């Protein structure tokens, strides 16, 4: 059984926008969601800037019951529920009846770690002999699958409800897992998403690795510089996004709006071999992943109009460009357009793949490719491989037909998806 799979709903809770409209507007204008975080300064971080969704104007009562809000400290879970419920509504779906779950609907909602602030509180209570005071939600807020478990109940999903975790490819991988499940006929629709907590306890380890920029604390919006000659590390981010992935049949039966078709994709690992390591990618594996995604999609590499890269704004950006060139057999002026949304979002870690996939797909709807922020001076090693015109610095009106989206993560893991503007609308 091999069925066509489409995206019928999206929701987002990103550093630069919490509704799809605001998010699209920010991406069009290159509006940054990266800001100075006094908490990081107070704790002596080298990098004191980060991307964090602004949910101060969001009425959480639309998403959580009063009891669920009590002692709720898992920021990623909050972002994830906002994005997840919004995506479900956006797809024209509603929660199942109280009597019976919807057996055909499931959830794959990933995260790297859940409820870090809640876990911190629990550690303090346990260490002072007050375990009895933990309450009933210490477990459900800190278990990795908390996010899929919360949404599973809110929406009444009766198919597979799970959480995947694979560092910075988590969101992209989740979409492909949902695609596989639907394609093989095991589900009609899956909410695929990912989320990541905000705060010093999540970001601290990266600061300690000295891979975050330290010279932009006074100039946060300039700090994240993918593909730039003076890129100096990734700016940590947080948030969530979710996509309703559905069989084309089901979408057509419901008369649902179709944002995009998922033509195919690939997930692999470099095995920490041939230059790959816990933190660096094996380029052969990256190229293989991209190539397999193209082959599985039944398209030619030449048909790809645009790439949304992983491109975190570290010294590895030119290597990524090289891998795309090699895998697609395209370079110089023949290279597709390429962008990175991390210039305005920062690197949202486990949430990156889903947020950036939503952004990629919004480009079909908007009829434009979103520009790259903070890339006035392109890295010379990138210019040796592709023409500057392939890296739009400003948002451009263009009808994209096929977009390749890739994510690469710690552990030497890779994921690449091919989206197309759906002709069935």
């Amino acid at each position, binding site marked *: 059984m091999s069925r066509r799979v489409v995206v019928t709903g999206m929701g987002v809770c990103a550093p630069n926008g919490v509704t799809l409209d605001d998010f699209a507007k920010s991406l069009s204008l290159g509006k940054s969601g990266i800001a100075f975080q006094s908490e990081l300064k107070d704790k002596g971080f080298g990098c004191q800037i980060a991307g964090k969704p602004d949910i101060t104007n969001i009425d959480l009562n639309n998403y959580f*019951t*009063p*009891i669920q809000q*009590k002692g709720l400290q898992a920021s990623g879970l909050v972002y994830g529920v906002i994005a997840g419920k919004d995506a479900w509504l956006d797809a024209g779906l509603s929660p199942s009846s109280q009597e019976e779950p919807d057996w055909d609907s499931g959830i794959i909602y990933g995260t790297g770690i859940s409820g870090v602030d809640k876990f911190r509180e629990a550690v303090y209570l346990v260490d002072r002999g007050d375990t009895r*005071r933990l*309450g*009933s*939600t210490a477990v459900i807020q800190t278990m990795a699958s908390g996010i899929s478990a919360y949404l599973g109940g809110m929406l009444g999903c009766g198919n597979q409800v799970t959480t995947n975790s694979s560092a910075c490819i988590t969101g992209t991988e989740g979409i492909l897992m949902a695609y596989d499940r639907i394609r093989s006929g095991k589900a009609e629709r899956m909410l695929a998403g990912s989320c990541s907590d905000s705060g010093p306890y999540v970001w601290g380890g990266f600061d300690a690795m000295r891979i975050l920029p330290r010279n932009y604390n006074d100039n946060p919006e300039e700090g994240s510089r993918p593909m730039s000659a003076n890129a100096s590390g990734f700016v940590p981010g947080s948030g969530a996004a979710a996509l309703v992935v559905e069989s084309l049949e089901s979408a057509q039966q419901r008369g649902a709006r179709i944002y995009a078709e998922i033509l195919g994709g690939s997930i692999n690992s470099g095995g920490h071999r041939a230059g790959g390591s816990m933190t660096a990618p094996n380029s052969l594996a990256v190229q293989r992943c991209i190539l397999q995604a193209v082959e599985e999609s039944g398209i030619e590499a030449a048909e790809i109009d645009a790439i949304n890269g992983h491109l975190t704004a570290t010294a590895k950006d030119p290597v990524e460009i090289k891998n795309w060139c090699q895998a697609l057999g395209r370079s110089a002026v023949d290279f597709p357009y390429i962008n990175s949304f991390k210039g305005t979002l920062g690197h949202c870690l486990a949430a990156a793949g889903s947020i950036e996939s939503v952004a990629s797909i919004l480009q079909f709807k908007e009829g434009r490719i979103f520009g790259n922020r903070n890339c006035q001076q392109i890295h010379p090693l990138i210019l040796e491989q592709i023409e500057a015109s392939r890296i739009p610095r400003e948002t451009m009106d263009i009808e994209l037909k096929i977009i390749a989206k890739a994510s690469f993560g710690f552990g030497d893991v890779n994921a690449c998806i091919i989206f197309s503007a759906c002709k069935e609308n």
Partner: protein
Amino acid sequence: MAHAQRYEQLKALMTPYLPEDVNPDEISPESHFINELNINSAHLVDIILDVEDTFDIRLENEDMDAMQTVKDALEIIDSKLRNQD
């Protein structure tokens, strides 16, 4: 603090934990937390913590086991407060 006032306080702190289909007006001293009010047993753990905070008392495991109905809870609260005086 009068017994009647404590009953009202207890009802107020329980109310958010009631399932949607249970009306707070249905709470009576005889109500069984789990069997009649359909309160999720995991939430009972949180109600106990709220009782501790509201009345500034400490409840032991055996107190929790004994708290089956609203009346049980009130009696335990009363006795804890008496012992504090």
